[in-house]
């Protein structure tokens, strides 16, 4: 019986000219979006690759210099792009791509792409995630809003029920009839994406498991929308009313709730402004150890301690370059201050994420959105992971520079110069993103929310369709 109903639904759907047109449009948009974003990424990637090499050349070719001056001169860390960013660009557009690494300061990623685009960018870009997240749910609604209302309007619902079809069978048949067309649109895209992404050059490693995971997440998302569509269709008497209700539902889930949650999260837990943040750090730094202020109280205290430790009376008697040592200690102290302040931002972000989890009750869009970005390595956590790795690398670089000064020059000898040998001895910045296992465990909340949506809406549909039988 289930297959019979499903077959009938499918036949009707495929016969419908509107379905064919919308299916073709959605499919074409998906394919087009992949190609458009590919060419965009390729040009961006080429630029970044050139900039990365350039930055390294500048670092290595800076000529003879005092190592600490070299640490001041610094270099750049570039955020790598991963193949699946082609599918979901996530927050990449709104988070910078490069971090300036220098002595004494932890900088934020600079130059977000959105700043260099027109106001239209805020409507969203034609990337696959846009189609997958917004348009396909609408496609499901367009195909299924009259699943039950049409039967009611034409009187066939009574006929069906008089044949003694159990509610759940009816529901499942309708469900398959609505879900299979979506599968038919998305499956080829998945296959094409696999072929396409695994053959990309210069995009880092590609994981089939992650892509499959992404595919499954989107299928669950579509299953939720299928359920919601059937549920609403069974609740209303008129097709047009069911359609309006579904449209409102889509709008609330996909458009309004993300924005509302954003405003709520910001209201409850807000970030300081850029300058406030910088001033807080400057304030914290002002009282502490600073390599460039050997006269400060903190430096004098360190001096006394060090002299005592080595059992000498003056810094010139120390077996190493005191200036370099002080620089390194100052940098370590400042790094700690940065760590604490950035940690505050992270904590604020964690609280904001909590808000999104609560509002996910209003919208299956949110958990899907976050999971999709996470698997594509374009979410905010990925950005943090990169920023932390860059900071680690900065400390390594600065430490190496100060260390060279400590070991190979004498206190007060600011004319000491290091050369290319030292610059090239600093390894290039290599970034390994967190494993997918840790990505998944970080997103446990989103996974369970999406699963809850799936099971909850399934239960509601079955319950409602069963009840419908008793009433009419």
């Amino acid at each position, binding site marked *: 019986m289930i297959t019979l109903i499903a077959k009938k639904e499918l036949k009707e759907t495929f016969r419908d000219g509107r379905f064919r047109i919308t299916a073709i449009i959605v499919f074409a948009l998906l394919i087009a*979006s992949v190609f458009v974003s590919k060419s965009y990424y390729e040009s961006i990637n080429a630029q970044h690759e050139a900039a990365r090499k350039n930055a390294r050349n500048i670092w290595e070719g800076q000529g003879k210099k005092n190592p600490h001056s070299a640490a001041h001169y610094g270099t750049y860390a570039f955020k790598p792009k991963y193949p699946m960013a082609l599918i979901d660009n996530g927050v990449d557009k709104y988070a910078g791509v490069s971090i300036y690494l220098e002595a004494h300061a932890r900088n934020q990623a600079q130059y977000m792409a*959105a*700043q260099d685009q*027109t*106001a*239209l960018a805020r*409507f969203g870009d034609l990337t696959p995630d846009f189609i997958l997240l917004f348009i396909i749910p609408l496609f499901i609604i367009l195909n299924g809003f009259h699943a039950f209302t049409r039967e009611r309007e034409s009187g066939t619902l009574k006929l069906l029920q008089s044949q003694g079809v159990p509610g759940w069978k009816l529901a499942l048949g309708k469900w398959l009839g609505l879900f299979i067309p979506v599968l038919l649109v998305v499956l080829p895209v998945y296959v094409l994406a696999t072929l396409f992404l695994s053959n990309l050059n210069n995009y880092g490693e590609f994981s089939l498991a992650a892509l499959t995971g992404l595919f499954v997440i989107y299928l669950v998302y579509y299953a939720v929308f299928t359920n919601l569509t059937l549920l609403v269709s069974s609740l209303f008497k008129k097709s047009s009313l069911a*359609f309006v209700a579904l449209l*409102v539902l889509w709008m609330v889930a996909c458009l309004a709730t993300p924005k509302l949650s954003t405003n709520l999260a910001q209201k409850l837990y807000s970030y300081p402004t850029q300058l406030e943040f910088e001033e807080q750090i400057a304030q914290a730094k002002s009282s502490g150890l600073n390599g460039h202020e050997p006269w400060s109280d903190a430096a004098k205290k360190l001096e006394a301690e060090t002299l005592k430790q080595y059992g000498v009376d003056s810094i010139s008697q120390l077996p190493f370059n005191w200036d370099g040592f002080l620089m390194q200690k100052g940098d370590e102290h400042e790094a700690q201050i940065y760590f604490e302040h950035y940690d505050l931002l992270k904590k604020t972000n964690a609280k904001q994420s909590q808000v999104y989890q609560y509002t996910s009750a209003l919208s299956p869009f949110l958990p899907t959105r976050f999971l999709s970005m996470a698997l594509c390595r374009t979410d905010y956590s990925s950005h943090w992971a990169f920023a932390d790795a860059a900071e680690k690398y900065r400390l390594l670089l600065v430490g190496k520079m100060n260390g060279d000064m400590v070991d190979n020059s004498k206190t007060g000898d600011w004319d000491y110069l290091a050369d290319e040998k030292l610059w090239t001895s600093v390894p290039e910045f290599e970034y390994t993103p967190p494993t997918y296992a840790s990505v998944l465990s970080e997103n446990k909340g989103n996974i369970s929310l999406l699963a809850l949506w799936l099971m909850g809406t399934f239960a509601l549909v079955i319950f409602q369709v069963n009840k419908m039988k008793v009433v009419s």
Partner: protein
Amino acid sequence: MIQHQFKYEWLQLFRERWVLALLVIFLGVMTYAVYNGNQKVNTRKAAIEKAKADMQKIDAKYAGQIDSISRGLSPAPERWLDPRSLSVYGQRAPRVVSMDAQPLAFIAVGQSDLFTHYVKPKLYGEAYALGFSELANPVQLLFGTFDLAFVCIYLLPLLIIAFSYNLLSQEKESGVFRLTMAQPISLYGWLFSRTVLRFIIIAIVLLVSLVIAMLVNGVLATAIANGFLIVYFFLLLYAFFWFLVSLLINLFGKSSGQNAVALVSVWVALVLLLPSIISQTANTLYPVPSRINMINEYRVAEAKAEKEAAKMLKTYYRDHPELAPKDSTENNQYSFWLEYFATIDVLKQAVSPILNEYDEAIAQQQTWVDKLGIFSPAIVLQSALNDQAGTAPAHYASYREQVIQFADTWKAYFMPRMFRNESMKPEDLPGLPQFEYEPKVHSTWVNNLTMLTAYVLITVLLSVVLFNFQKHEQMLTS
């Protein structure tokens, strides 16, 4: 007859509970949107005010110090902290160069969440290399703000579709249509006046909810004094356009359900798809050169300039003889700075090709968007609202320009004085350059108004044409 119709329409609409519910929700949504927009503006204003207050504190502190040192009341601090030193003042007491919110800023967040609204360009460093980024959670930027612009661009058309998708079809489906047609009235005139009447109802609802929303948030008076009527007029045209689209779709004589689907498809195409397609093609066709390239060039030039600073200073003196020291044996306390000043132009020259390339790409993107934007009223309305709110990309570009100019003014104040080896005196303080943001952007409201009016006229025309080509029998039968 019109009066009759109006009353009938009114009764018919408001007898349906869901219409009333929808309107109440709309009022709530509007109020919340205005609240959100206003909240953002207040945060922005508060941040600027605090920065300015801090600046005044530093000024007062330095003024006090300069005064007491010059009168010999307190000893001079170390050189790098002495406010009498021009370099200390120029570097440690920068002006707050702020982009003040326009009176209607609350209607559209626009680009305002991407950029900082105040910077402090110092004596050292180049303003064109400033990032202008605001600290923000990128997820929030991705999702955007629930502001009035969002409500009007995205939700208002949906409300109108819900109000009008069954303009004709419902009459046919309920059988009233034949009765109406038995009256001696023109079919098109009847339909059109029906559309206009519903539009008037929405126009009133829109006005009332806007006024209430602004009243609740305490921005009504400023809004009315600063071009709220133009904004309302934009919204009316946009709303009327959507009613006319609805009329057009109804004229095809299909069922209510089919109308609803068709209308939503139009909405998706005009509001969701077209803008994203145009934006994406703009990025792909005119990629903006990475700013990192600019920074790399700058660093190379800077390193070179540092090495040759002494030589550059000599050349600089040749080009600016008025700045050259009269007594070459005199030691200038700002010698480090003078070498830096001498390199500024060289650095600028090194990066200006990339800066130009960058500006050009942005301009090309904007031209492309402006050209293709005429295909979507949503794009036109967005641009119109951002323009009125002072949050369009053009405003931020202009602000950036003004910052760069002011940074030059700031430097120009100190440079000649430092070349003359002078110090800061108490009487100099009131003469320090001050910054005042001017929204210099050429408003696009005439353009936007023309465009929105054109949409309305074209859809009216289309509906007339369609009506005359349509077989009336088909419209009469359900």
